[in-house]
């Protein structure tokens, strides 16, 4: 497995096409990361909302099934 580039600078330059390649990579990785972060946050938010509702009901009436 031999790397095609001799130095880090060469990796950044990509033979003149560095800007295109790295912009494409950055944007793609950013979108993929967002596809993980957004649902995770949404999930946490949903759980928190359930927790809030539970606490409200537990603190309020003592009756069961008053949903």
């Amino acid at each position: 497995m031999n790397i095609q580039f001799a130095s880090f600078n060469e990796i950044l330059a990509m033979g003149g096409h560095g800007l295109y390649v790295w912009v494409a990579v950055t944007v793609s990785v950013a979108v993929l990361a967002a596809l993980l972060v957004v649902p995770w946050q949404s999930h946490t938010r949903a759980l928190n909302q359930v927790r809030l509702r539970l606490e409200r009901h537990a603190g309020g009436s003592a009756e069961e099934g008053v949903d």
Partner: protein
Amino acid sequence: MVTEVKKWQWFYRLGSPRWFYEITGRWLPWLLCAASLLLASGLFWGLLVAPPDARQGNSFRIIYLHVPAAILALVGYYIMALAGAVGLIWRIKMSFMVMKSAAPIGAALTFIALFTGAVWGKPSWGTYWVWDARITSMLILLFLYLGVLALQRAFSSAEMAYRASAILALVGTINIPIIYKSVDWWHTLHQPATLKLTSASSIHIDMLQPLIVMICGFYVFYVVALCLFTRAEIIRREATSAWVRALVSNESSR
């Protein structure tokens, strides 16, 4: 009779949101590891190790993001439509939740495919946008995704939203081959030279191997993202059920 019921149990279990939630809760860390490994190694291999293309130099390396994204974008639409069909036919709410989750993922992947395609186009043909048959079809696919996303959010009743967007997804599915074929034909009318984004038939094995790794990585990533979105949707829709409340109170008591 009992063995017959046992055979289909996996299908009905799949329809239980609680079972899906618990199973994905256990499998997600492993799937995420697998996806990260595949994507990281594939990117390293493709960006740094694979030999540069004779004609396009190093800009061809964008292929390692463009092609897998495009493949998953198209496959993702069919997954979304299939989930919608299953939900409509067998009335399985779980299937609708998967369908709803597939929409934003597919739209994002289509965007990646279009963006990387445009960025690749500049060094290869001197312009950011080329009305190439494949790119144009991908753009129309993005519109189809956006339509499903918009329709999903337009209804106040969740049940209506699910079923309407399932129907729209199915209508889109029938149209996708028509769209691809007609755009292909249109392109041959107006462009004398066929500009191919990937000459797949003549791709060298040294360049092909990392591409396969990336495609596999994207597939696993898709499953991870789908599970994450679906789990959030499950909590939202099943918020009043006993198991969710038990789950939340167990977590808060820890």
